């Protein structure tokens, strides 16, 4: 299969991937390796996994990382409540301790969490490990083990091996540096803010009813806004919100109503300092350039 075919398939699902990204996805699928996507917030990293699941017509299993994420929430956990109830019930029935122990540590009492679930599917799912840099380093080490062996050992049960190898997508946006070991095990793609043409295509794909002249203006405006000194640059989702807001307000030309434009900036600028910096004059200048 050609990488351009994948690019088209993703475009059909409404995701316009840059050439670099499409190639990375193609190789990740062909070589069966995890893919690490890095880039600023709001450039569409998570969306890659969702679209990929749609393209491959398979399930998306998502593991959202956060500080303090541990094995119990990511891999497996015993269903303690159920075990307790079983012990109580067994005590009343007069069952022997040995057989109860055998029973409560069987797979029936095992709660599958995303990582274990992902390797025990009949069809290879897409496993999205979102914002891996938020998890602790200890968890990263654990993840490495799972990603290299595709097996999980449960002390009470033995080793559970993978029935299928999931398609693994990891995303990070630089909360902390990832270890070299993890980087080496993955293919890598850096997702940047899209260029003008790509972003225009994204807007057309997601929001088809925008008129060409307005679409051009929106993209020009957002692209030049990203060049300003902002605390938080607007991402693609923000751009789409902005277009939706303009459509809802019935704006046909960015320069026609400065007040309305300033009000709709609420969709693009998300910190007080940024709102403070982009005053009406600045937004009008940017809109004028974009026109």
């Amino acid at each position: 299969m050609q990488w351009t075919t994948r690019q088209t398939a993703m475009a059909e699902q409404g995701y316009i991937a840059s050439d670099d990204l499409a190639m990375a996805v193609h190789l990740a699928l062909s070589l069966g390796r995890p893919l690490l996507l890095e880039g600023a917030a709001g450039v569409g990293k998570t969306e890659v996994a969702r679209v990929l699941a749609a393209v491959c017509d398979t399930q998306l299993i998502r593991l959202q990382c956060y500080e303090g994420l541990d094995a119990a929430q990511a891999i497996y956990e015993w269903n303690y409540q159920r075990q307790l109830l079983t012990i109580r019930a067994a005590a009343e029935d007069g069952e022997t301790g040995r057989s109860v122990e055998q029973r409560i540590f069987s797979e029936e009492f095992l709660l599958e969490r995303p990582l274990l679930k992902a390797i025990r599917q009949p069809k290879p799912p897409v496993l999205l490990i979102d914002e891996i840099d938020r998890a602790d380093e200890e968890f990263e080490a654990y993840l490495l083990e799972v990603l290299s062996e595709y097996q999980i050992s449960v002390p009470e049960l033995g080793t559970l091996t993978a029935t299928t190898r999931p398609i693994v997508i990891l995303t990070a946006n630089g909360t902390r540096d990832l270890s070299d070991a993890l980087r080496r095990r993955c293919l890598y793609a850096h997702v940047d803010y899209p260029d003008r043409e790509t972003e225009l295509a994204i807007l057309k794909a997601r929001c088809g009813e925008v008129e060409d002249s307005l679409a051009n203006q929106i993209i020009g405006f957002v692209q030049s806004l990203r060049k300003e000194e902002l605390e938080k640059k607007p991402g693609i989702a923000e751009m789409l919100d902005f277009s939706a807001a303009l459509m809802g307000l019935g704006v046909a030309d960015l320069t026609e109503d400065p007040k309305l434009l300033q009000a709709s900036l609420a969709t693009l600028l998300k910190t007080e300092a940024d709102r403070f910096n982009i005053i009406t004059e600045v937004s009008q200048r940017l809109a004028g350039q974009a026109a």
Partner: protein
Amino acid sequence: MSRVSKFAARDPGPAARMAGFTAHLRAHGLRVGVGEADIALRALTHVQASNPEETRRALKTVCTGCADDVAQFDDLFDSYWLNGGRVRQKVVPSLSETNSESVQSSRPANSQQVAAGTGETTDPDDGNGEAEADGTGKLVATIVQNLMKKDLRDLVQPEDIAEAEVIARRLGAALQDRRSRRRKAARKGDQIHFRKLIRQSLATGGEPLSLPKKHRPERPLKIVALCDVSGSMTLYAQVFLAFLAGLMRADPATDAYLFHTRLVRIADALRDKDTLRALGRLSVLADGFGGGSKIGQSLTQFSRTYARRFVDGRTVVLILSDGYDTDAPELLGTALAKLKQRGCKIIWLNPLKGWDGYQPIAQGMAAALPHLDLFRPANRLADLAALEPELTRL
């Protein structure tokens, strides 16, 4: 595609070339090993390897591992695979071949743009003399500029900043290391949260299954520094600016301002990673440096604008000034009183106080005194270092 490298006829084939390429990448600081060479070869079987752009993308995905790698990959790829049709002498290049003309390999990968020996990179000495703006040449140029224009870079040396940074870091630590008396539930705590434990165990028939923890949350103080750079303070500005620069680097929560006849926020400029560039940005901001001083007006402006956003009960406001004010002293008094209402601590560091027989008789200083938590001399870095025990007590 005439730019594609020609390899010698006796070379042993694609595998050796790929090994040569990974060696080439390694020589320029990318972390690739045998494993990557293997995956790279396998990756090429999944793309049209005869198309250079496709190969470039495939190898980029395999061989890079962070944004810095991606930035320099294209140049490295060009210099190995697309070196303008020149015959490559050996398939597996000896490292000296690529190293001799490019950056030293001892440098970390991200420190310099890679100019591999392809002949495509322009020599630095074509065009006029300004093209030599690199390395030490740049330094000379800026020093000459400094003499023409009054520049803060005259006043602050990088070594001073390094020294000030050490002191500032210690001060920062003295303020940072504060924890609440009360404990709060936390995922990673040092003690067991018994109340929560017992409440949770009710759900499981009195058997405690999970052990909730609690810890003492940190309540760090942050510093907001206001530095006077009026004419009378010029002598001390060197020390103070170095100190501020150090302070900013030591603790990201610190905030800093300059004032003379008006107030300028310099926090963003000072936080620039390049020390010299930071001071360059600073001198642009500090237009009017070495002029008169309007302390009262500047502080009023501060308490009315920035203080609302940045000053709260966990803030130490550090004022570095000699107190010679051209405004009415009442103005300074009211400004400080207003600032004090926000619950912050105010420390005034006066360089003149270090002199023998100094009395705070300047009207402005006298008006300020009742509002200060601490009034200290400071005209050398050592004086600033001596602040540490005082700050811990605050």
